[in-house]
């Protein structure tokens, strides 16, 4: 697995200029919007870039070659999840640090707990995207996978809106009283569960796949 991680980190390193450009965009963005925006932005970019390594692997029939190396299919899937989650977590930490610096530079005192909540929230959000995206990409390929994923998200959104309209449902009042830390804890547990479930599905997809 070490070889796979090194391979992906080298692929990410070779995108250094793009990453720096995106970082600069984030910095500009944080001046125009709330400083917390940079946390969400960097975490999101980090997750997307890490998931992009799947596209690099797929390009030019790369999967075929990778699987002739000392790599098993299960190992490949596990490494991909590990990389995506850890890389996104690193980006969330960097985003939180950048946000803290920006807040300090603007002469305000940063609310560390609040910023950490933002960072963790962004990480969990992207973990959900990772949990959805990787099985889709492995099953349908990068291009088709993305289309199928977008279709899936739109379908979910439409279903949600329809349900709301049909039932006239509103968020229950108790939602407003929920402790944010507790909600985050529950969300974290749910996200972990989803990532594990998604990894199991991705393994099954990979085991059946032919190259």
């Amino acid at each position, binding site marked *: 697995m070490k070889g796979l991680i090194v391979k992906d980190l080298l692929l990410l390193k070779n995108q250094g200029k793009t990453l720096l450009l995106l970082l600069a965009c984030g910095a500009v963005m944080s001046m125009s919007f709330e400083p917390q925006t940079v946390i969400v932005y960097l975490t999101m970019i980090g997750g997307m870039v890490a998931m992009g390594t799947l596209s690099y692997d797929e390009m*030019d029939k790369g999967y075929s070659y990778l699987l*002739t190396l000392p790599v098993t299919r299960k190992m490949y899937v596990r490494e991909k999840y590990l990389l995506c989650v850890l890389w996104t977590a690193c980006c969330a930490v960097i985003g939180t640090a950048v946000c803290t610096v920006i807040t300090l530079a603007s002469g305000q005192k940063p609310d560390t707990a609040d910023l950490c909540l933002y960072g963790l929230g962004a990480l969990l959000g992207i973990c959900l995207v990772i949990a959805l995206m990787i099985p889709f990409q492995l099953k349908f390929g990068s291009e088709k996978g993305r289309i199928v994923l977008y279709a899936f998200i739109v379908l979910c959104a439409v279903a949600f809106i329809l349900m709301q309209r049909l039932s006239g449902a509103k968020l229950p009042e108790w939602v407003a009283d929920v402790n944010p830390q507790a909600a985050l804890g529950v969300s974290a547990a749910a996200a972990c569960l989803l990532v594990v479930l998604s990894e199991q599905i991705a393994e099954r997809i990979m085991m059946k796949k032919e190259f």
Partner: protein
Amino acid sequence: MLHIENVTKNYPGFHLQVSLDVAPGTVTGLIGQNGAGKSTLFKTILGLIRTDGGSVTLLGQNAQALGAESRQRIGTVLADAGFSGYLTVRDVRTILGQFYPGFDEADFRRRCESSGITDGKKVKDLSTGMKAKLKVLSALSHGADFLLLDEPTAGLDVIARDEILDLLRSYMEENDHRAILISSHISSDLETLCDDFYMIHQGSIVLHEDTDRLLNDYAVLKVSEAEFEALDKSCLLKKKKEHYGYSCLTNQRGFYRENCPSLVLEKSGLDEVITLMARGEEV
């Protein structure tokens, strides 16, 4: 080293059914037309596709369930796949070092440099020949016991091909137990390298022969229609209609040389054997 027993794979319009053996210490060539099933067979051996029947035993294990440690003993070149084009040659070296405990970094670097494959270049920016060479050098870099080489000399000029063949000969000389299964559409490359050949045609093995026998005993008879009618056909494998009559493939050159000395009998190279086996009719 490799034992394939009646392995089958079905695609719409294509059926692969192959038995094949590669013994330690031998270089086995796999020849056949484009689309004959060579790459499919390589993918089957490497577990990249599932089989519909039969078994593939590689390094004494079921090839479909080969673990990462066993894969360290194999070096592979695939005709149309390799490392991501966005990695540099230096990156490839680093990655190989992480994957293979037996990776000889200094030797790999030296061979790359002598081939003009510079460290900082991205794989996608290398010429076709350099890419092919990098693939072969990667397969040879970690002292594998078995090499699976699908069209390793594709895109290389004659000098570069010769260098690759020399590398493969040296690889075999270093250890008696090593083996290679190699496919190539350039028959002259294989004639000088392989100990035996399998010819695959429309998914089936139609010929298995030792190189010495193939080059010494196989021959092409060029006969008129009248000569063909009078010919003892018991030792003919295939015939093909030509403007002058028939060209016929035999694996008993001595028989026709002794019994039909007046006939035109030419030693066949691999190309003639492939052509007649693939395009010829049963006698």
